[in-house]
């Protein structure tokens, strides 16, 4: 009952605000959605404490969805430690973002629509994390994609917002295609899409093979790789990451909720949820590790060069998602989810803090035109520091516990891919510290670079925006400490139960016994990053420009985001446009319309004119036609008659 309430209450709120928003008005719509969201959050927390630790995994069956031959599955809500952790995280952050939006969006004309979308998104996300089978997971998966599309394009009168929304949707389609193929593959191998049945049968399928595209594949490797393509799309991993920075076109609360804290972690959740399958394929795990590590490094480099405050945080998100994936890839699923949870708090905090800055700066997002704000908006300043310290992994903030754990498990895996991940992760940690410091210095310190009118306007955000930030800051400070033992520490076996693939002697266990330098090195790197940031942007502000001049190619390459967008534009987009235009102008316009509708219509009109012109009105013409007609028919008859 609690589960049903937790999942469906946001939907009710969304429907009320969505369909009755106009008559309810802004204020009531906000109250309704926030109210239902709060109820859902309470239900989720209750559910969490009822289920863990040691609670039994259960499944609330709602009704049959499809029953067609072998294929049968239900609408059902799965309640186990993994889904309750997700429920709790998602609903808490969603509630705080809902409340924050009241303040942030107060001047927007479409408040009910915005609140309805937020609640709708939350519903789909909850549906995703509580799914009992792959098809229902796909339902939630597509639903959050839809909500993401709607919210990125929320300011639909902006062409850039529409383009970003379409880009997000289309890039996600690529991933979704992999996901669907993965579901088909799983159904082909197991004959079912229900998670329990799949997990029960999985060990027996460890050596199964399937034929796909004419090649004999290791069944688990194939399925897991296809599913991982879906995860890459949703979680913006290297190659399918291009939509995430553009998605910042949406309002800032959307960036915080969807494109930082929750939706983009759906891929991480999916891999963790299907961990019993992934552990059966070393190849798939290696791929996950490498893609994750590469993304962590690559996104961090770009983060160091961007000017837009939201884009810096967006690339940071991309980078952090890479950390989560390589944690999963080396087999530390609990660690990945742990970082997912802590990251959700501090990244939402950073985004909303950035939103508060943008709000204060009259919608200015370029850090080059900020600076010296710390005295004017001290609360936001402190909160941003907390978020940044958590992101950098400074003890005792939440990021320290989860991120260091990730680096430790990567080291402890003692595999080739794990080592690469460790090194790339370490480098990314340094860069994370650097760009976080850079962000703070550029925004809050130094001389004000904005014009006076803007500076005069700078003001602290209203309380309805600050209190959610304080809540998130509490999470960013304490979530790591509180969760450490349960998620990755001594209690983890009891905590996760059978929800994740784990055992007493796995990589997480080894991670607690790594050499001391592995534990201290990340801190040293972070400190170096902070120092460098301070040097570049406070002490010697001429240094950045000189570095850029010294390495112009490298700088351009990184600043232009490794030219991914240009590459895709050249390889996919322009050819697709050319093909489309060719088919439209030549194929449809010239050939089909020309020979089809237009051609036939022209012929028809011509014939009609000829026929009616033949109708002269003269009697002798008519008689002539009759006689000639008869003569013709008789002649034809005699010529062709069989006798």
């Amino acid at each position, binding site marked *: 009952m609690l589960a049903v309430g937790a999942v469906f209450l946001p939907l009710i709120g969304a429907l009320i605000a969505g369909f009755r928003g106009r008559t309810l008005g802004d204020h009531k719509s906000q109250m309704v959605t926030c109210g239902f969201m709060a109820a859902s959050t309470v239900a989720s927390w209750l559910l969490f404490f009822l289920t863990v630790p040691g609670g039994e995994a259960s499944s609330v069956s709602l009704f049959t969805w499809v029953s067609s031959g072998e294929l049968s599955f239900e609408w059902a809500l799965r309640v186990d430690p993994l889904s309750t952790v997700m429920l709790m995280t998602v609903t808490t952050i969603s509630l705080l973002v809902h409340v924050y939006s009241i303040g942030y969006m107060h001047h927007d004309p479409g408040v009910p629509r915005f609140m309805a979308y937020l609640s709708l998104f939350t519903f789909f996300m909850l549906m995703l994390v509580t799914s009992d089978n792959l098809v229902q997971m796909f339902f939630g998966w597509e639903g959050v994609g839809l909500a993401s599309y709607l919210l990125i394009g929320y300011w639909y009168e902006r062409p850039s917002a529409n383009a970003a929304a379409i880009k997000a949707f289309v890039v996600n389609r690529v991933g979704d295609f992999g996901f669907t193929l993965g579901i088909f593959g799983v159904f082909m191998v197991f004959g079912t899409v229900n998670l329990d049945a799949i997990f029960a049968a999985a060990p027996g399928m460890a050596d199964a093979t399937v034929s796909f595209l004419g090649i004999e594949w290791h069944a688990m490797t194939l399925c897991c790789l296809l599913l991982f393509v879906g995860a890459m799309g949703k979680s913006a991993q290297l190659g399918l990451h291009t939509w995430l920075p553009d998605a910042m076109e949406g309002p800032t609360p959307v960036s915080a909720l969807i494109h930082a804290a929750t939706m983009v972690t759906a891929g991480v959740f999916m891999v963790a949820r299907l961990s019993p399958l992934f552990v059966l394929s070393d190849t798939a795990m290696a791929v996950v590790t490498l893609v994750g590590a590469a993304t962590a490094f690559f996104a961090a480099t770009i983060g160091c060069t961007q000017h837009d405050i939201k884009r810096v945080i967006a690339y940071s998100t991309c980078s952090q998602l890479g950390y989560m994936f390589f944690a999963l890839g080396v087999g530390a699923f609990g660690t990945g989810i742990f970082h997912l949870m802590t990251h959700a708090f501090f990244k939402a905090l950073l985004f909303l803090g950035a939103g508060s800055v943008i709000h204060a700066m009259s919608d200015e997002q370029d850090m080059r035109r900020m600076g010296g704000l710390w005295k004017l908006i001290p609360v936001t300043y402190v909160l941003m520091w907390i978020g940044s310290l958590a992101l950098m992994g400074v003890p005792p903030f939440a990021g320290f516990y989860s991120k260091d754990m990730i680096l430790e498990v990567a080291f402890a895996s003692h595999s080739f891919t794990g080592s690469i991940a460790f090194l790339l992760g370490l480098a990314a940690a340094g860069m994370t510290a650097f760009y976080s410091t850079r962000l703070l210095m550029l925004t809050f310190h130094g001389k004000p670079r904005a014009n006076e009118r803007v500076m005069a306007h700078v003001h602290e955000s209203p309380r309805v925006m600050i209190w959610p930030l304080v809540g998130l800051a509490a999470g960013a400070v304490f979530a790591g400490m509180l969760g450490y033992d349960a998620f990755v520490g001594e209690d983890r076996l009891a905590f996760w139960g059978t929800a994740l693939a784990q055992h007493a002697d796995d990589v997480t266990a080894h991670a607690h016994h790594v050499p001391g330098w592995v534990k201290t090195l990340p801190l040293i790197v972070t400190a170096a990053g902070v120092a460098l940031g301070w040097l570049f942007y406070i002490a010697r502000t001429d240094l950045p420009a000189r570095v850029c001049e010294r390495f112009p190619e490298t700088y351009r390459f990184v600043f232009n985001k490794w030219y991914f967008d240009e590459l895709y534009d050249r390889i996919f987009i322009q050819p697709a446009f050319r093909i489309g235009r060719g088919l439209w102008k030549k194929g449809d316009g010239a050939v089909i319309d020309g020979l089809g509708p237009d051609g036939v219509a022209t012929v028809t009109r011509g*014939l*009609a004119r000829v026929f009616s012109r033949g109708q002269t009105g003269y009697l002798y013409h*008519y008689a002539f036609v*009759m006689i000639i007609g*008869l003569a013709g*028919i*008789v002649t034809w008859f005699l010529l062709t008659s069989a006798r």
Partner: protein
Amino acid sequence: MITDPLALMPALPEVLMALLGMGLLMTGVFRKGDTAPLVCRVALIGLALVAALVISQPGWGHAAPAFGGLFVNDAFARFAKLLTLAGSGLTLALALDWLAREKDLRFEFPILIVFATLGMMMMISANDLMAAYLGVELQSLALYVVAAYQRDNTRSTEAGLKYFVLGALASGLLLYGMSLVYGFAGTTNFDGLRSLADSGEVSTGVLVGVVFIIAGLAFKVSAVPFHMWTPDVYEGAPTPVTAFFSVAPKIAALALLARVMIDPFGPYTDDWRQVVVLISILSMILGAFAAIAQNNIKRLMAYSSIGHVGYALIGIAAGTTEGIRGLLVYLAIYLIMNVGTFALILSMRRRGQRVEAITDLTGLSRTAPLSAAAMGVLMFSMAGIPPLAGFFGKFYVFMAAINHGLYTLAVIGVLSSVVAAFYYLRIVKLMFFDEPVEALDPVSGTAPRLVLYGGALAICLFFLAPGVLVTGAEAAAVALTGQPVAPAPVPSSLLSSTALP
């Protein structure tokens, strides 16, 4: 000659019809005062009584000859006569209202209609080329006169004159064909011609005569290339006359054509079929294309009727019982659609002045939604959109053509009906989607309203019980061909390899 008075009994409806016509003429001429309303009423009642007599006459099951074999009364003839009588009666009822409004109602009009109908009944029941010619001429002479009925109107007189001259030419062709047949076969009696044909002997002279006969009758049904008179006459003649032209004479002439082709010349089917197929194809195509360029609704209906005759001819071209059944079903449905449509056209007036442009119907759905809806149904049915009756009419003739292997004919028929759909739907578009210029007067009078709404309703609901009409038409067709409807011989190309046990 006539020894047995009972030998006249099969022709009793015709006899009564003739007496009715002459009696009305006497009344009209000798009675003082304005006799027109009385004559009209009596004529209508007379038509209804004759129709009732046709139904109630004994002997549905077999053919009954009269006049020494010149005349035959069988189920086919009765079915066709009922359609003809219905067409005459309905159009007469519509005409009275219209003529009264035009202050042009004279007693000659109903009398001419009665005589024309008598001629048609003779045509339908003819069992001899001479009897057939008599019927055709009686009908035609009456029609020439009604075409020129508004004698102080130049368009009407022009129409009458054109029709008369060209009709005379067609009669000449018809007569010439008959004489050719007589010259080569030695008889004009259908039974005699049939036994000659059955003997397997064929002379080219007879066949050429048959082609001439087809040409002469094709003029009467306005099939291409003998259609040239139709648009001019339809436009020029008074509208009720046009309505009358478009149904009753067509039904009678097609019935006569079917009888001539199937009964005496049935064994020659493979010879004459190509001519009928050609005429049918030309009619369908011309009817579809030429109508697109029309602005006058009466001209449009002229081309529409040319097209419909093309479809009806498909049934004759098939030459099978199924084909004749299709023909009769088509004619019955065509009758209802056309009379219904003309009920609206007859009511097209603006501030009392009659209007005839298609664009006058613009926006009818705003000003007269019910009429527009009925007209919409009729137009959709004419275009052959299921589940309206017009679809079934086409369906049965196309089925007959397909089952007889006339694929080209069926395909052209379907394609031309697509083209034809354009101008029917254009009327619907005008009525429902365009802004009205000025409202038409509402449909007034009991008869037009009854015919319009009743027709539309019948067209709508036909699909609920098509069996009533189809079974009757089948019985009539069997009476003509003498063969039951073959269980549809499915073309081999449509058979799947495993369908047969």
